[in-house]
């Protein structure tokens, strides 16, 4: 991909001999892409630097404000990181983007809403918060796992080896299908997930007041991540998963059951997404059928940012994205005199996605150019 283009720029392109018309040669020699990229990079760096300096100069926000934003970003980023693991695992092994992963996340979370509200109305939730939370985690993980496994079985397995666009379009269809299935099941309204009293309020940490729920979310995510890391690096299943990702045929020759390994990958990714859902509702406590879409895209961004296929990358990408999302709009945009900067938060997330893919498609920890198929 890179080589022929650089040839173009030096004027030794193969196309020069073929095309006789001058304007085409001119257009091909003109590094349009490079000009646009450099301009883009300059404009964005300029905006970010000027915005940051100007915001800090106004002194409207205290250090405590920034710390709060930062911690909120870390908590949110940890959830993204856990969802991102699902994308990364599947991509690492099948090289497809499981576009419906956000809906897998929604499925578990939405379903456990009914258990949580049952527990809450009987008072069990606040009486025994920790067993209740564990129960919710398990249920959510189980439902999401089930959905992920069915998804793999019905939608993706038949398409192994099909041209790339085919599984992607299937995934988009599956995403719509799951959203509207759960809308049909549970209704279209937005539900408030019941709060757990002991997680409300703040505690003092190093002189700053930090929300308890944010600490729980961050720690929970860390535990989940460590568990996954252990599974991938230290167990037989993890080794099988890495082997299948490396080369499916050879792995099969080595006696690995490829189908079972792939379905386990989906199951693990799904279970993590379901568990992440319970963390998610501690931060944003509304559940409805469309709740998975935006976190799904953001988690995908996190996975790409860290280097898709890499588990450490997903964690890193999630944290960076979460922090940039929480701090970014206010830090970069207030100084530029843009009203209600938080409205533009999606631009920061999607902007990061676009920029990473343009400038470094491999992400932080990935190879500069991923395997092409």
């Amino acid at each position, binding site marked *: 991909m890179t080589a022929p283009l650089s040839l173009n720029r030096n004027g030794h392109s193969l196309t020069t001999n073929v095309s006789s018309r001058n304007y085409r040669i001119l257009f091909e020699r003109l590094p349009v892409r490079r000009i646009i990229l450099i301009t883009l990079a300059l404009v964005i760096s300029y905006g970010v630097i000027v915005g940051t300096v100007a915001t800090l100069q106004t002194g409207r926000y205290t250090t405590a404000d920034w710390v709060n934003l930062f911690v909120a970003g870390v908590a949110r980023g940890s959830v993204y990181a856990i969802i991102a693991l699902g994308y990364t695992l599947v991509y690492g092994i099948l090289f497809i983007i499981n576009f419906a992963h956000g809906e897998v996340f929604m499925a578990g979370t939405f379903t456990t809403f009914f258990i949580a509200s049952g527990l809450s109305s009987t008072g069990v939730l606040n009486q025994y918060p920790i067993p209740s939370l564990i129960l919710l985690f398990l249920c959510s993980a189980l439902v999401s796992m089930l959905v992920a496994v069915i998804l793999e079985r019905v939608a993706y397995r038949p398409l192994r080896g*099909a041209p790339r666009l085919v599984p992607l*379009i*299937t995934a988009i269809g599956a995403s719509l299908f799951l959203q509207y299935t759960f809308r*049909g*099941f549970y209704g279209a309204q937005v539900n408030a997930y019941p709060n757990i009293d002991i997680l409300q309020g703040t505690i003092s940490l190093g002189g700053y007041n930090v929300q308890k729920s944010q600490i729980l979310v961050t720690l929970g995510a860390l535990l989940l991540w460590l568990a996954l890391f252990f599974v991938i690096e230290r167990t037989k299943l993890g080794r099988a998963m890495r082997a299948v990702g490396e080369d499916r045929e050879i792995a099969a020759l080595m006696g690995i059951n490829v189908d079972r390994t792939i379905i386990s990958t989906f199951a693990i990714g799904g279970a993590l997404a379901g568990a992440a859902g319970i963390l998610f509702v501690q931060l944003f406590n509304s559940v409805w059928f469309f709740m998975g879409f935006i976190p799904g895209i953001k988690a995908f961004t996190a996975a790409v940012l860290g280097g898709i296929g890499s588990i450490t990358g997903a964690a890193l990408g999630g944290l960076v994205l979460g922090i940039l999302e929480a701090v970014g709009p206010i830090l970069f945009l207030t100084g530029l005199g843009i*009203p209600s900067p938080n409205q*533009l938060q*999606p631009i920061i997330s999607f902007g990061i*996605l676009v920029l990473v893919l343009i400038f470094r*498609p491999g992400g932080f920890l990935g190879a500069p150019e991923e395997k092409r198929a």
Partner: protein
Amino acid sequence: MSRLPRWARVGLLGGFIVIYLGAVGMLESFSARPIVTGVIQFSVVLIAVVYMSSGYLAARPGKDELESNPRRSAPLAGVVAGALVGVFVIAMTLLAEAGYNPRDMFIAINPALLDILTFGQSIWAGLVIEVVLGGVLGLAASYLYTSSPNTRSIVVTTLTTVVMVALAAPLFTVMFDGLGIPDSWLFQREGLTVIGAIVVATATAFLKWYLLKTGGARKAMLQVPKVTEKNINLTLWLAAGVVLTVLPWIVNTFISDVLGTVGLYILLGLGLNIVVGYAGLLDLGYVAFFAVGAYSIAVLTANTSFLVGGTVNAPAAEGFMNFWVALPITIVIAVIIGVLIGAPVLRLRGDYLAIVTLGFGEIIRTLVLSDWLKPYLGGPQGITQIPPPPLGPLNTRDPRILYYLILAFVVISFFIATRLKYSRVGRAWAAMREDEDVAEGMGISVVLYKILAFVMGAAVGCLGGAFFATKLSVANPGSFTLLVSINVLAVVVLGGMGSIPGVIVGSLVLVGLPELLREFGEFRLHIYGIILVAIMLLKPEGLIPDARRARELHHEDEEPITDVAHVAIAGGHE
């Protein structure tokens, strides 16, 4: 799973599908739509189709079997499916009686649904009815399986046509009223009458039988002296032209309006088809160009636009410029934005490109929604009071006139898309789509051609957006969600990527039908999801495949894809 015989697995799957259809609320909604008024509703037809499909699948030999025993396995599968449904109804009723109402969680599992599944009888009688129904339909399916292909084709076509005609009853009623043909003998309250059903069935069966006997309509006509291939084509084109011209005058304004919407989607579909079908670039942010077109036309022509200093409450005397002057400018804007977005990202691999374009779509939507650009683009309210395109003395607010306008642009785009496909450029795209590296080696500048495809798609999408805005006389962010991109994608995929007639069929089916069948409106996106998955699994080249594209989609692994069809339908194995 593997211990269960095939008929049991297929039967259970069928039962689960019926329960699923009930739990998402489809059966309840569709029970309001009669097929044969007073005799059978669409919900019952759906259940019957599931039972018959189970039976039919069970009749086929399994993967490891050489032959099957259809008379035994098909009814058994139907019975299993019916029994599962019956047991489900009993379980739900008992649960509700025990104080755990399933309705608290699954809103659609309510008495109305249970009533549909028991056919209004008690739960135990309901179980018996379901089992018998499943068995009988399974047996019918086994006869269908063992019959000759011609008989099978006649039966299936006849039944499908009756259901289709019945579903489209409101449309036919309007058209017959418009033409002054009495139709009360055929249709009654949105469904067919018993006599109507018999007439439609007999006519279809006879026609299908005749066509099968003579080897297709075209062949039959060619046997008439002096009729040539060319004459037939010409006649077909002329007929299509006449129908399209008189159509708005025999239907009411509502249907003309729907036709306008279908036309818009054909326009958008033709544009996206260039990007996805010809060049093989999956663009999920197509709505971005749609929005650019709508907003550009709004800003340039509305008298509330900031360009003329108007506001919603105090609009200026007139817009900045005339629609017909604004249209080329809008297209130029779209082209520029297309190049700006396209040039940096088009080197990305297919699936990354899809996500990046999706990101761009969301960025544009966030921008138009924001307070930041509110003074220019109106924030959440958008820009209102966009004037209709001036067209001499004609009132272009009338959906019928607008229909002709959109039709004209559809015809132009159709012509361009067809010519483009077989041009040098079109062949370059095809080469690039099949193998980028080889295409590059053959002297095709991949980046240039990708940008070209992207920009052409952008221009057509923008044209669609401009008409959309003038049609609604308002451009607001609510109209430019990701779902628009997915709708258009579904249109292209259903018809067949790269196929121009496919786009037209796709729009009619996916955009036209749901507008007319209000019970389907609620499940529109649900059904889109099912269609996208089903098409990709079973027929990735679409309903009306483009020959070259079909070969591409099948050449790599013929085996897995055919194999898939079994597995996906049959459910679990080994």
